[in-house]
C-alpha cells in the first residue's frame, strides 16, 4: 500500500470514505514526514509552523465521520496554507518581522469555505516577505529549499507551499500570486500550480500586495486536486467587491480529461527569445509534440506587447504595495519599535526594523512612481500599456483557446545566485506576469525535467473564467502525457 503522503487529495478522500485510512492517520503521516525532514541535514523549511493541534482536529473529523458526517466533501483532509492568508486564531507574519506576534482575528473567506467543507489547515508555509520575491529567499525564516535539489530555490513567493506539496509534507497547499508566485514555484518544484482568474477566489483575508493583481492560488500533485479545492472555494464574496460571480462547483465531481483535437494553442515568439534556457526549450518542444500528437493545433504567434509585461508589472505592483503596506506602522498590531522619542520615529523605526530589504525597495519604488512629477510618466503610462496588453492578449484569445509557453526561462536556480540583483530576480517573472495583468487564469504543469533532473513547467493561459478548460487540458496531460 502506498504511503498516505504520496497519495493525491482525491485518493485520500476516497480512502477516508472507504475507511481504509483515517484522517488522524493521514495527518500523522504528514506530520512525521515534516518532522523527519526537519531533523535532517538540510530541511526543506517549507513550513514555518506546523499546527500541533492539527492531529486533534483530525481525530475530531474521524469522530464526525463515524457519526455519519461524511457529507462534507473534504472532511478531514489536510491543507497547507501560505503565511499571508489569515486563519482565525493562528499567527500570521507574511514572513516578516513587522507582523511577529500578530494573531489573525478572522479567517479569509477561502479558508472559511474550505474549513466548512471539512478541511484541516495543518500549517503555515514559507514565502518571500509580503509575497515580494521570486525565490522564497526574502523570508525572515530563512529560505525554503527545493525538494528535488536542496541547494536550489523553490521559486517564489509561494515557495514553501510548493516545497511541502513536492516534498510530500502536504497533499495540497494554498499560495498566492501577484506576478507568478504560484506558477513559478510549481514549475521549479515539479508540481501543478493554478492561478485562477482575477476575481474567481475572494481576496478577503489574503494580505494585499498588488490589489489589482493578487489571487490565491492552489498547488497539487494532480489537476483533479486543484479542481476539488477550486470547486469549493470559488464564488462571489460580499466581503470582496472585486470577487466574481463564478460557479465552479461542478468541477468537484470527476474532472474529465479534455479531448485536444482541434484545440488551438498559441506560443508567443517573444517568449522564445534570448534568455530562454535551451533545456527548458527542449521540454516545451516535447510538450508541443505531445499536444500535436493528441490533435491540438499549436502555432507560434507574434505578440510584441508581451515584452512590456515585466515593466508594467514592476510599476503597478510596487505602487499598489507602497499603499497597501502603509498600514504596517506599529500603531495597532504587529511589531512596534520601543526606542522612540516621538511619533515620527515610531513610524520610521518600526518600519525600517520590521521590513526586509526587498520590501523596502518595492515600497520606495512604488512611492517614486506615484509621486507628483513621476505619476504620469510611470504609473499612468503603465496603466495605459496594461490596457493595451489586455486588449491585444484578448484578441489572441479570440483566435486561440490557450496561450502556451514555458513557465520560467530557467529551471530552479541556486540559492543566493540572484538575491543581490533585483532586476535579474524580477526577470524570472517574464513569462508569468502577463496573465496577472490581463486577469486571466493560468496553470503551470510539470512538463518534464532537465537532463540534470530539475523540473520544468509549462504554462497554459486561457480566457477569463476558463479554469475548467485549463484544468481539463492539464488532466489530459496528467493522464497520458506525463507518464510517457
Amino acid at each position: 500500500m502506498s504511503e498516505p503522503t504520496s497519495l493525491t487529495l482525491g485518493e485520500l478522500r476516497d480512502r477516508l470514505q472507504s475507511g481504509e485510512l483515517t484522517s488522524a492517520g493521514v495527518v500523522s503521516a504528514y506530520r512525521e514526514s515534516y518532522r523527519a525532514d526537519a531533523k535532517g541535514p538540510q530541511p526543506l523549511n517549507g513550513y514555518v509552523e506546523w499546527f500541533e493541534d492539527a492531529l486533534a482536529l483530525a481525530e475530531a473529523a474521524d469522530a464526525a465521520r463515524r457519526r455519519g458526517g461524511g457529507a462534507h466533501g473534504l472532511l478531514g483532509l489536510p491543507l497547507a496554507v501560505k503565511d499571508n492568508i489569515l486563519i482565525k486564531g493562528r499567527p500570521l507574519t507574511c514572513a516578516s518581522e513587522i507582523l511577529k506576534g500578530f494573531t489573525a482575528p478572522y479567517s479569509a473567506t477561502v479558508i472559511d469555505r474550505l474549513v466548512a467543507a471539512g478541511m484541516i489547515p495543518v500549517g503555515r508555509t514559507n514565502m518571500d516577505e509580503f509575497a515580494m520575491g521570486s525565490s522564497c529567499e526574502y523570508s525572515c525564516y530563512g529560505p525554503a529549499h527545493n525538494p528535488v535539489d536542496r541547494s536550489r530555490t523553490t521559486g517564489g513567493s509561494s515557495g514553501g507551499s510548493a516545497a511541502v506539496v513536492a516534498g510530500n509534507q502536504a497533499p495540497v497547499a494554498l499560495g498566492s500570486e501577484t506576478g507568478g508566485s504560484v506558477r513559478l514555484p510549481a514549475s521549479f518544484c515539479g508540481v501543478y500550480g493554478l492561478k485562477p482568474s482575477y476575481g474567481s477566489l475572494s481576496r478577503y483575508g489574503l494580505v494585499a500586495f498588488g490589489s489589482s493583481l493578487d489571487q490565491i492560488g492552489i498547488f497539487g500533485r494532480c489537476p483533479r486536486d486543484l479542481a476539488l479545492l477550486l470547486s469549493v472555494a470559488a464564488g462571489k464574496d460580499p466581503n470582496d467587491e472585486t470577487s466574481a460571480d463564478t460557479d465552479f462547483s461542478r468541477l468537484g465531481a470527476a474532472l474529465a480529461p479534455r479531448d485536444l483535437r482541434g484545440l488551438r494553442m498559441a506560443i508567443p515568439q517573444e517568449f522564445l527569445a534570448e534568455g530562454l534556457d535551451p533545456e527548458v526549450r527542449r521540454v516545451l518542444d516535447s510538450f508541443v509534440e505531445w499536444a500535436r500528437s493528441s490533435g491540438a493545433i499549436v502555432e507560434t504567434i507574434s505578440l510584441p506587447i508581451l515584452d512590456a509585461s515585466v515593466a508594467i508589472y514592476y510599476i503597478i505592483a510596487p505602487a499598489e504595495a507602497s499603499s497597501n503596506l502603509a498600514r504596517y506602522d506599529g500603531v495597532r498590531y504587529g511589531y512596534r519599535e520601543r526606542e522612540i522619542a516621538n511619533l515620527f520615529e515610531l513610524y520610521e523605526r518600526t518600519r525600517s526594523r520590521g521590513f526586509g530589504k526587498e520590501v523596502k525597495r518595492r515600497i520606495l519604488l512604488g512611492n517614486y512612481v506615484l509621486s507628483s512629477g513621476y505619476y504620469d510618466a510611470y504609473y499612468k503610462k503603465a496603466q495605459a500599456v496594461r490596457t493595451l496588453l489586455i486588449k491585444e492578449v484578448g484578441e489572441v484569445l479570440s483566435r486561440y483557446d490557450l496561450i502556451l509557453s514555458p513557465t520560467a526561462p530557467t529551471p530552479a536556480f541556486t540559492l543566493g545566485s540572484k538575491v543581490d540583483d533585483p532586476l535579474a530576480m524580477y526577470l524570472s517573472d517574464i513569462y508569468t506576469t502577463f496573465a496577472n495583468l490581463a486577469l486571466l487564469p493560468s496553470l503551470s504543469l510539470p512538463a518534464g525535467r532537465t537532463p540534470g533532473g530539475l523540473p520544468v513547467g509549462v504554462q497554459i493561459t486561457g480566457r477569463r473564467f476558463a479554469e475548467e478548460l485549463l484544468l481539463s487540458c492539464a488532466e489530459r496531460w496528467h493522464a497520458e502525457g506525463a507518464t510517457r
Partner: protein
Amino acid sequence: MSDPTSAKNGSSPAVGTRTEGGVTFEVIIGCEVHVQLLTKSKAFCGCENRFGGIPNTRVCPVCLGLPGALPVVNLALVEGAIIAGLALGSRIAEVTKFDRKNYVYPDLPKGYQISQFDMPICVGGHLDVATEGGMRRVGITRVHMEEDAGKNLHLVDGSNMSYVDFNRCGTPLLEIVSEPDMRSPEEAVAFVESIREIMRYLDISDCNMEEGSLRCDANINLWVYEGGSRHATPIVEIKNMNSFRAIRSALSFEEKRQLEEWKAHRLTLDAVGKSTRGYNDETGETVPQRTKEAASDYRYFPEPDLKPITISPSLVEVLRARVGELPEAKRERLKSQYGLADFDAETLVVSKPLSAYFEEAAAGYREPKKIANWILTEVRSVLNERNVEIGQFPSKPEHIRELLEAVDDGTISGKIAKEVFAEMAVGGRGPREIIAERGLSQIADEGDLAKIVDRVIAANEKSVADYSAGKDHALKYLMGQVMKESGGKANPVVATRLLKGRLSR
C-alpha cells in the same frame, strides 16, 4: 479651489471692495465643508455609524486596517451624495470611482483614505445664500464621497501620549467644495449655515458642529487693487474652526492679518503659493501649521479594491422623487401660492415638518399669511422654550386654523386667543373645546354689554366729564374699564359703539 490670480474681468474693483489704510481690496473666500451622513453603517464596512460610544467598540478588520481586509461600498453613501447633489443643482456623474489619498497619521489606519479625486460623483451646482447685502449665489465646484478618520485625544496626563479611538473611522462623509465666491467672513458663515439647513432638510445629516458631523475649512486671500492692476495675496487654508463663531472670528482675523502682511511685505500668490494655518479659539488668532511639503504629496491613484460605479438615470429619478420638493422650489411656491413674504417663506422652508404643518393649517383659510405669522411667532416660541421640534407639538395644524377663525368670527378677541393657545399648547385640545369649557366667548350680546357699559359710566364720572370736554383719551380709559369689568370678553366693536352711544346722549 480655482485660482483667482488672473484678473479675468479687468482690474477694476467690484462691489465687495473696501478701502482701509489706503489699500483698496476685496476678500476672496471659498469653503470646504465636510458633512457626516446619517447612515446605519459605515462607508466601507458594516460597523454601526453612531456618535460616541465606548472607544474602539464599533470597529472591524476593515475600518481598523487589519491585514487582508477589504472595503465594500455602502449604498446609502452613494444615495446621500446624489441627494445632496440634486439639492445643490449639481450634475450627477454617470460613472464615478474612488481613489486612494495616501498620507500618514495615527487616526488613519490604512495609511490612506478612500476618497475621490478626478471623477467625483457630483460636479457643479450652486447655493443661494441670504446675506446682509442681499442674496449671494455661491457656486459649488464639486461634491465627493470619502471616509472619516478616527479621533485623536490628547489628555493632559503628563504621559506624553496621544490616544486614538477608531469608532468614527470609516464614517461616510460628503465633501462639498465651493467656488471662491464669498466676499466676507459673514458670507462664509451664511454659506455654511445654509449647507447645514439643506442637509438637515434633506435628512441626510444632522450637521452638528459640536459633534463634528459638520466641519469646515476655508481658503482665503485678498485681491488688492492698485494703480489699475489687481494683485492676489497668498491663499491661506484655515483649519480648526469648530463653530460658526469661530469661522467668523478666524476669517476676520485672517483678513486683517493678510492686509497688514500686504502692506508690510507685498507678497503675492504667484510668489508664495498656498499655506495652511490653524485657528486658535482662545486667542482668536490663526497660526501657521507645521506641514512638511512632501507630506502633502497624496499620490492619488484609483482604488483597486472597488469597482467604478455607474449611476443610472432611474436611480437618480428614484432619489429625486424621494427628496420631493427641494427647498428653493418650495420657497418660491410658498410665496406664490400663499402670498408669504420672503423671510417667512425662507424660515418655513428650513424645516420640512414645519412647512408641512403650515400648509395643513393654511388649507382653506383665507389669509395664509396670518397662519404663517402665528406659527413663526407663537408656535415657534413654544418649540424653542421646550427645545422640541414641531413633531412634538401637541396641537394639530387645523387647531391653529380654528383658533384664528374664532378671532375672525368674533367669538374671542386676539388677546383671549393667546390665552386659548397657551392652553392648547399644553393639552393638545382644540380651541373651540377650550373656549366653550372656560366660557371665554366674547360677550357680544348687546343687552349684557349695555349693562356693563352703564356700570362703568356710573363709576367713572370724572372720565365721562373729561370725554364731554373733548378729551378723547378718556374714551380709551373707559373702554379699558369695560374690558376689565367684562373679564376681557367684551367684543370691542360692539362695546365701543354702545359706549360712544351712551356718552353722546
